[in-house]
């Protein structure tokens, strides 16, 4: 029996995975979530910003990873618009521009934010490190127009913004190595305050920077998005997703346990 269990067709495992995702979608449930310190720190920092401050969001993710950072962007932007904090969007990832445009417009419509006054999307420029360094000297030297090719001199909310000195916080929403780039060139060289919202895949490598305060806050994956949604009291795809993810996580843990039981039983028999 255990030998059979160990040689089970992988497609049976695939079917189980599909089922534990589909079932909670058909019968949604909600489980209370505790907020961890790194997300709370980011929330507190933004909450304490005076109205009229400006934060910059770097949308550094693509279609292969947008599911986790997108609800983070939504939640943080909602918080910002409620606090009358302006948002500048940029991206170092070539595939992120339409994604950033979509999420910014969606939140703006919901919160009644006005383009050019409350938020702006500058878009994409190639050359990660050089873009970060260039904006540190002068944002206009990198982005002389916004995503819609409107000169930034004609955008009201950018009139008093020259470089990072006028940016209260940079939030990196990343799936790759741009958080490290922002810390190395944005924080170290220009003393820019940085927080991050990252995909699960790179969460673990953020903690050394969190302890040194090179990152003032962190939203770790789907959980981070759900935590921020809880803090601003808004139900979004982060909360919905983390509830569904609960069952998949239990399934994976169950598979590990069953696989190991079968393995040890068979090994004992062989001995």
């Amino acid at each position, binding site marked *: 029996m255990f030998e059979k269990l160990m040689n089970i067709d992988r*497609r049976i495992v*695939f079917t189980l*995975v*599909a089922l534990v*995702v*589909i079932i909670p*979608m*058909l019968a949604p449930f909600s489980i209370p979530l505790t907020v961890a310190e790194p997300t709370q720190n980011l929330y507190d920092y933004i909450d304490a910003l005076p109205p009229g401050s400006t934060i910059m969001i770097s949308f550094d993710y693509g279609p*292969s*990873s947008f*599911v*986790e950072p997108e609800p983070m962007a939504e939640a943080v932007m909602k918080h910002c618009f409620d606090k009358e904090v302006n948002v500048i969007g940029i991206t170092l990832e*070539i*595939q992120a*521009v339409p994604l950033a445009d979509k999420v910014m417009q969606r939140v703006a419509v919901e919160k009644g934010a006005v383009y050019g006054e409350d938020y702006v999307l500058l*878009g*994409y*420029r*190639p050359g990660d*490190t050089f873009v970060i*360094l260039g904006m540190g000297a002068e944002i206009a030297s990198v982005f*002389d*127009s916004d995503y819609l090719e409107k000169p930034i001199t004609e955008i009201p909310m950018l009139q008093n913004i020259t470089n990072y000195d006028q940016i209260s916080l940079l939030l990196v929403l990343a799936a790759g190595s741009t958080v*490290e780039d922002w*810390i*190395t*060139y944005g*924080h*170290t*060289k220009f003393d820019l305050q940085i927080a991050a919202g990252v*995909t*699960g*895949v790179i*969460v*673990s*490598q953020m903690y*050394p920077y969190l*302890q*040194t305060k*090179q990152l003032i806050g962190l939203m*770790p*994956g*789907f*959980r981070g998005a759900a935590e921020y949604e809880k803090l601003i009291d808004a139900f979004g*795809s982060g909360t*919905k*997703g983390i509830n*569904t*993810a609960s069952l*998949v*996580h239990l399934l*994976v843990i169950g598979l590990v346990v069953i696989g190991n039981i079968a393995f040890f039983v068979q090994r004992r028999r062989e001995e």
Partner: protein
Amino acid sequence: MEFLGIWIAAFLTLCIYSFLYRDNPFYRFAEHLLVGMSVGYIIILTIYFGLIPYAWDPIQKAVTGEASRWGFLTLIPICIGLLFFTRLSTRHAWLIRYPIAILMGVTSGIMIPNALQTDIFAQVQGTLNPFSVIGTLSSFEIFGAILIVIGVICTLTYFFFSVEHRGPIAGISKVGITFLMIGFGSAFGNTVMGRVALLIQRVDFLINDWIGTIF
């Protein structure tokens, strides 16, 4: 158009999921279409948000007098950049060494001082800082601070290949492996969350958006 978009997206989603059963032409079609469209997308955005604002605009503005004549300086990096294309000719391929050497020099020069500060000084400081406020820490926090020092030293020792790992060094690097395994375990745990997130989104799309158009 929205209806059509949802159906096309659903069809392509199912094409890719068909790979879970086995490799098949539907999957290969979607895979190659994705590669092609990504390349097309990158071409357009590189021209629009790279070459035009960085290379074309400064020269054009210098010619028309909209900007100062210093704009012509941009011709230097443009020429350096164009040298990348010598790679396409077997006779002149060696010329690609020029732009690569310049980029290597520039990025190395920028990286050294900033990486020293970010990844060496700040990280060492972060490891030792808790001991400067040790009086304010609970015994559990002190345990954590000591654990971090031990972990960092042992992990570094594991990666130190200039000496043979024998005797006490072998013991220390073994402890380093222990820490690394915990690090990789936590990375695996978090990776599961990331991959599951994508799956949830796609299933959500199929059930709520696509099937929603049928019923």
